[in-house]
């Protein structure tokens, strides 16, 4: 359980995170979405106490992260930037982290096997590929069997097989009753993994809702229709919540389902040459949602700075 309350972080003039209030519940995978630079990594650093908030607060299981006597048991984290000394072997890296919490070396071997690094565990971590580095980070996160997992872009650098592996792992960890908080800038990947999403743009909260709601919001009911009797059909479909837009070689109808349009055409004896429901992709919906925020603030920032300096 992660609870952020009015969390704000400024680096000098730049606002990285602005007044974020949200909570991440146990038992499900919660996606943390936003374009690069939206403040996802900063938020995660604030949760772990690596950075101190300018104002507001964030707790994990009711306490600030640093106040827990066994921090790694509370949160296992994989941060986007690598957090491994390049000259040390993966095994020694994990062994040192384990030692801080009195965790045995057999558990270190266990997590190495779990992420599939047994063949390279004694090699320098600096020689690891991006995917191997991610696996080592995940091993470190799982070391103390934490009740909350915070993973920043865990799919980065993994091959398709690795991506499926991490997706299944996250779901099974959540199914065991853990809190799983995963950031991504890829909506499509999140749609497959997360049950709940928190969307940020320019450090501000854009959405906090079940994934299914976000998908529903993203799907606009537009149907592409082609027919030789376009004028006749358009007139027949017209209604208060229906819009018909002529496009090249046909029309796009919003406000009716494909079935309703097909039935109406059959009743009037109109031939249909195409009847295609179109869904805006999740990616597009996500872009639209965050784009507005970005443009709005870019514009106000310009106004503020030109006004302020005048």
């Amino acid at each position, binding site marked *: *359980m992660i*609870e952020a309350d009015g969390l704000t972080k400024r680096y000098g003039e730049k606002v990285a995170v602005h007044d974020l209030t949200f*909570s991440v*519940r*146990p038992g499900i995978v919660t996606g943390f979405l936003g374009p690069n630079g939206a403040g996802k990594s900063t938020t995660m*650093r604030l949760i*772990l*106490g*690596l*950075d*101190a908030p300018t104002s507001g607060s964030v707790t994990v*299981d*009711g306490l600030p*992260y*640093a106040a827990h*006597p*066994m*921090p*790694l*048991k509370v*949160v296992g*984290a994989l*941060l986007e*930037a*690598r*957090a*491994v*000394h*390049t*000259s*040390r*072997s993966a095994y*020694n*890296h994990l*062994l*040192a*982290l*384990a*030692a*801080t*919490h*009195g*965790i*045995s070396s057999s*558990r270190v071997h266990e997590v190495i096997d779990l992420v599939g690094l047994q063949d390279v565990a004694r090699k320098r971590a600096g020689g690891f590929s991006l995917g191997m580095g991610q696996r080592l980070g995940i091993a*470190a996160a799982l070391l*103390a*069997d*934490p*009740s909350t997992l915070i993973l920043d872009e865990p799919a980065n650098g993994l091959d398709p097989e690795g991506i499926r592996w991490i997706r299944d792992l996250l779901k099974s960890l959540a199914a*065991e*009753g*853990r*809190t799983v908080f995963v950031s991504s800038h890829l909506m499509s990947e999140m749609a497959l993994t997360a049950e709940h999403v928190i969307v940020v743009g320019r450090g501000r909260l854009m959405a906090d809702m079940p994934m299914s709601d976000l998908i529903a919001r993203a799907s606009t009911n537009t149907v592409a229709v082609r027919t030789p009797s376009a004028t006749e059909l358009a007139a027949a479909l017209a209604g208060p919540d229906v819009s018909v837009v002529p496009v090249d070689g046909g029309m796009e109808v919003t406000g009716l389902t494909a079935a309703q349009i097909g039935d109406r055409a059959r009743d009037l004896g109109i031939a249909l040459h195409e009847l295609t429901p179109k869904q805006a992709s999740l990616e597009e919906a996500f872009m639209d949602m965050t784009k507005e925020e970005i443009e709005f603030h870019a514009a106000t920032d310009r106004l503020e700075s030109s006004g302020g300096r005048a």
Partner: protein
Amino acid sequence: MSTTTEPVPAPGVRVAPVTQARVVRAEWIKMRSLRSTTFTLIAAVVAMIGLAWVVGAATNSHWSRMDLMERLRFNAVDRSLAGVHLAQLAIGVLGVLVISGEYATGMVRATLSAVPRRLPVLWAKAFLYAVVTFVLMLGAAFASFLVGQHFLATHGTTLAAPHAWRAIFGTAGYLTAVALLAVSLGFIIRSTAGGIATLFGLLLVLPGIGLLLPTDWQKHTLPYLPSNAGESLFSALPDPTALSPTNGLLVLVIWVVVGLVAAAVLLKKRDA
């Protein structure tokens, strides 16, 4: 939200609270699992003993040609321990690297996530590196002395020579102070180049610049620089303007404490 969080059952994984002792153990694993640590410490030992060998052999073979003034200034103990000036380079560089290496690679994020109260990491690193330095450099200083004795025994180098023991322990003590200053600067400056430059600016450059001060200011400032305070500790025949060995030790301790306190404050306060 006031939902209660159910504890996750964790069969098999035994986890204990973070304690200072456990952090020391973790830092020990880190220290011994980097090859650069071993190489640099070997370099420090070789520098101490090797220089004693070279200086001892050279002095012995030139003895008959040395003039009276040179013989009067000659001190066999100090000659044997001349390697301290080289060893401090290795000890200082490694002390900075123990911390700046973590910042350069990002390891520090893992370290501070495991120990978010942070200060135990500083104490563990400082303690371990001080102990390792003191033990190794005491051994190296003693070995250097014996090497020197082998060449210079006829010119007055025995353990019974005045201040011989103090010089040996003083060498190890000074190098330990250098180690702790380096660790502090690692935490304060966080970059390898900046940390090393600052350390050797303080140890090697500042005493030279100090000589440009008006002469009557010099005696109130120069002896208190860490390298000169150290000199009064490890030199069997110190400069007459130097502090007494006890005061030298005291001044070094103050430098170290100030460094560690500054490091602790900044480590606690700054974003990682």
